[in-house]
């Protein structure tokens, strides 16, 4: 049980930092709303005619996923910033706990950030573009799990490199393609169960892989 207690302590530390400094989440919220507004103007002229035919939902759902993935990327780039700036990662690695607890705690914090992001992004999307159905919400939650698991690990890799902000999207986007496939499928398909199951599979596979390999990313 000490493992879970450590994880909870680490996640609480990140949330408290964010509550006090407020330097990541407000930026993410503003970014996702701005992105959605940009999409409105990026849609070709005549999108309103398409809207009249009711086909807009299908095209617009893709935009939602693009906005979510890129905003998550924005948050992930800052995920290890407090540790890096304070030089605290070495301390955490030396702490008498399993190193995967560091990953799990950070992932839990990122997951909560992503849920807060969705609480703004989904209503904004419904307001601007198209109504959001239940399977989209389920897809977003499942995708959040995958994004926080993979993203936290990749952000730790990127933090070790010289070009951190530059390299994280390159590492993350190829791995995020299956998430987008699953998410968009869950949003627009007539039978979303298959896509939700796929998202669950993705989360499971990569969560186990990240859990097992995080130790090697932070230690020498």
């Amino acid at each position: 049980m000490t493992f879970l207690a450590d994880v909870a302590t680490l996640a609480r530390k990140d949330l408290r930092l964010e509550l006090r400094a407020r330097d990541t989440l407000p930026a993410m919220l503003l970014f996702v709303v701005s992105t959605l507004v940009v999409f409105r103007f990026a849609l070709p002229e005549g999108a309103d005619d398409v809207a009249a035919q009711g086909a807009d939902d299908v095209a617009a759902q893709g935009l939602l996923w693009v906005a979510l993935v890129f905003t998550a990327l924005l948050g992930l780039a800052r995920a290890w910033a407090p540790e890096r700036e304070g030089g605290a990662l070495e301390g955490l690695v030396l702490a008498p706990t399993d190193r995967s607890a560091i990953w799990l705690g950070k992932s839990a914090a990122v997951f909560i950030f992503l849920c807060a992001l969705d609480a703004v992004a989904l209503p904004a999307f419904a307001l601007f573009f198209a109504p959001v159905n239940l399977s989209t919400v389920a897809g977003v939650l499942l995708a959040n799990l995958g994004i926080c698991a993979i993203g936290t690990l990749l952000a730790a890799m990127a933090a070790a490199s010289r070009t951190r902000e530059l390299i994280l999207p390159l590492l993350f986007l190829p791995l995020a393609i299956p998430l987008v496939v699953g998410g968009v499928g869950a949003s627009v398909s007539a039978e979303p169960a298959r896509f939700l199951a796929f998202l669950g599979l993705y989360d499971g596979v990569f969560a186990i892989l990240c859990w097992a390999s995080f130790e090697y990313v932070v230690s020498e």
Partner: protein
Amino acid sequence: MSTSSLNRSGFGSPVPLLAVLASGLVGIALALVFFVAPEDADQGLSQKIFYFHVPIALTAYACFGWGAFKALLLLWRKEERYDLESYVAVHQGTIFGALTLATGSIWAKASWGHWWLWSENQLVLFLVLFLFYSAYFMLRFSIEEGPRRANISAVYALFGIALVPVSFLAIRLAENVIHPTVFTREGPQMTGTMFFTFCVAWVAISALAYALYRLELLGKRLDSNLRELREALSS
């Protein structure tokens, strides 16, 4: 410098032999493809690229798998040499992956009249993998050399091998399947000569990949030995 490290730096290495063997096999495969294998009834001459496209793709998978295997060994046994071996395998895999994209694109143009088709699942998968492994090099070259870089590269290479089936499933889910399936559960849908030619081509490409792998490994090791010598002389 001891004799063993001299050996490892190239003297008495099997690379020349491998190179001769690989080029001989590729020559035989070329001869078989163009002079022995019958022309495809449907697609005519353009089908011949199949004998290179598919073996190159399979070889690329094998290289990625080999790189991931060496990465696993590195994390497990912590021996430095696995880092270079994993890197070289991934490097060869990326080269063969790029060749797969090129040959697949040419085949798509000849058969369907388009250079790129999103309905080509295998081709899309290779594009995703190509992007993924290109990022591997960006990551590797932006981290200071040392055990940390070796570990991070290894973990990333392992992710690649998990990404292959997951992406494949994703792309299948995203698209309807219209790729011509040459291999089915009933066995290959080819005549005996065609199948034989395909097998020879596959062996030839694999031998070529292995020869290139050993050659690059040799070059990289010579490089690092030379650097060590230079440092030893200057100090």
